[in-house]
């Protein structure tokens, strides 16, 4: 019996994925707070074999697209009152902690919005910084050069605070597509409508002249103001000629709880594409 138990414990320890990793697992992907409860939580888990020193901080930023259509964070140098920032009144408890190996830690988030906060959506970003160990350096041998690099990993997730009844929507314009190598790069201009960020999915289908689908993509998008994202479709092996690219934007996201999704009607557009 003791041997069986020892084996079970050994197996379970193996399942726990004990490793020399430096960093933490963070859940959920995004934090939604509302004006009624004004609180939330994130869960951190240290999968490594060593304690992880973790620091929580918040800052204001929102996603935009760069010239290549990739999403990036826009972080203003300073935040003025006209910006929908929740950063100044979101607190995290604790902000600094040491998480033992294979252990979870809950971080409580508490909002203290100012009196008279107008209905709307307010944004912040949560930064979870984990400091790992360093390559050991010692001064025992004074006749050598030794290098010790410390690894730090940061995870940044969105925080959204909502007050009142909010709406969202998306306007689509300037859909175009350009072949590049084995891919077709689709670009589109997206402009948010309503009083809250559009958080949804972009789904593209490339149709042949008979109307049959020959390539597809689907990608989550979050449009806080406007964006000009790029989407890539694999077109290797497709015959040269004319095709039609159909784009749909909807708010069907399986990775976000349905009660947190702001729904809006599906928006569609399409464009002719010629593959060389």
């Amino acid at each position, binding site marked *: 019996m003791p041997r069986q138990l020892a084996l079970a414990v050994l197996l379970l320890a193996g399942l*726990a994925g004990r490793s020399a990793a*430096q960093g933490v697992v*963070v859940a*959920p992907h995004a934090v939604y707070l509302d004006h009624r409860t004004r609180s939330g939580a994130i869960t951190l888990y240290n*999968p490594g074999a060593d304690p992880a020193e973790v620091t929580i901080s918040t800052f204001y930023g929102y996603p935009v697209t760069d010239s290549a259509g990739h999403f990036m964070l826009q972080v203003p140098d300073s935040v003025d009152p006209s910006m929908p920032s929740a950063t100044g009144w979101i607190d995290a408890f604790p902000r600094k902690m040491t998480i033992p190996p294979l*252990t*979870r830690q809950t971080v409580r988030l508490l909002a203290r919005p100012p009196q008279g906060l107008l209905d709307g959506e307010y944004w912040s970003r949560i930064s979870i910084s984990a400091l790992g160990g360093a390559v050991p350096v010692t001064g025992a041998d004074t006749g050598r050069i030794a290098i010790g690099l410390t690894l730090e*990993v940061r995870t940044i997730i969105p925080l959204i605070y909502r007050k009142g009844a909010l709406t969202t929507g998306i306007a689509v314009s300037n859909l175009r597509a350009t072949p590049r190598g084995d891919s077709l790069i689709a670009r589109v201009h997206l402009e948010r409508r309503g009083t809250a960020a559009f958080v949804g999915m972009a789904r593209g289908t490339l149709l042949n002249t008979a109307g049959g689908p020959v390539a597809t993509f689907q990608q989550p998008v979050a449009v806080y103001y406007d964006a000009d994202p790029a989407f890539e479709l694999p077109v290797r092996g497709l015959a040269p000629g004319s095709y039609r690219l159909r784009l749909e934007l909807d708010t069907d996201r399986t990775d976000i709880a349905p009660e947190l999704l702001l729904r809006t009607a599906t928006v569609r557009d399409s464009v002719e594409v010629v593959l060389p």
Partner: protein
Amino acid sequence: MRRCVCFLVFALVTAARPLAGQSQVTGLRDLDFGAVIRGVQTTVAPTDPIRSGRFYVRHQLNRQVRVAFTLPTRLSRVGGGGNLPISFSTTDAVAQGTAATSSPVTFNPNTAITFTLVTSADFYINLGGRVSPAANQATGDYSGTVTLTCTFF
């Protein structure tokens, strides 16, 4: 005794259970330059299976992850008394998804890059670099910090 064992098993099962909707950024291996000689540049390639720095990132399929390194240009001598130059070239980082169909992507670690997780929900990043000690470089221990920031949208 049996109660203690049951509790231990329960605790380990709890620890092993993944978090729902999780993201993970982990440093797996330090960038290791090994023995450094005065006046001799030491380079570690990102493809070096032992000495390259290695990170693991996990999110969700089809979503985007913005990856940005904050890299030192000089390492400080512990206790003061000098710096040691360190640099990272435009091909010193390689990202590789975990799917069989994933292709390695070489990128410049000095510039942020956004990946779309098309073939796998997780990937590794290997980091290389080089140190250039001067001919009269003071001996001793030099330290610095490499930071990997992953932004999930």
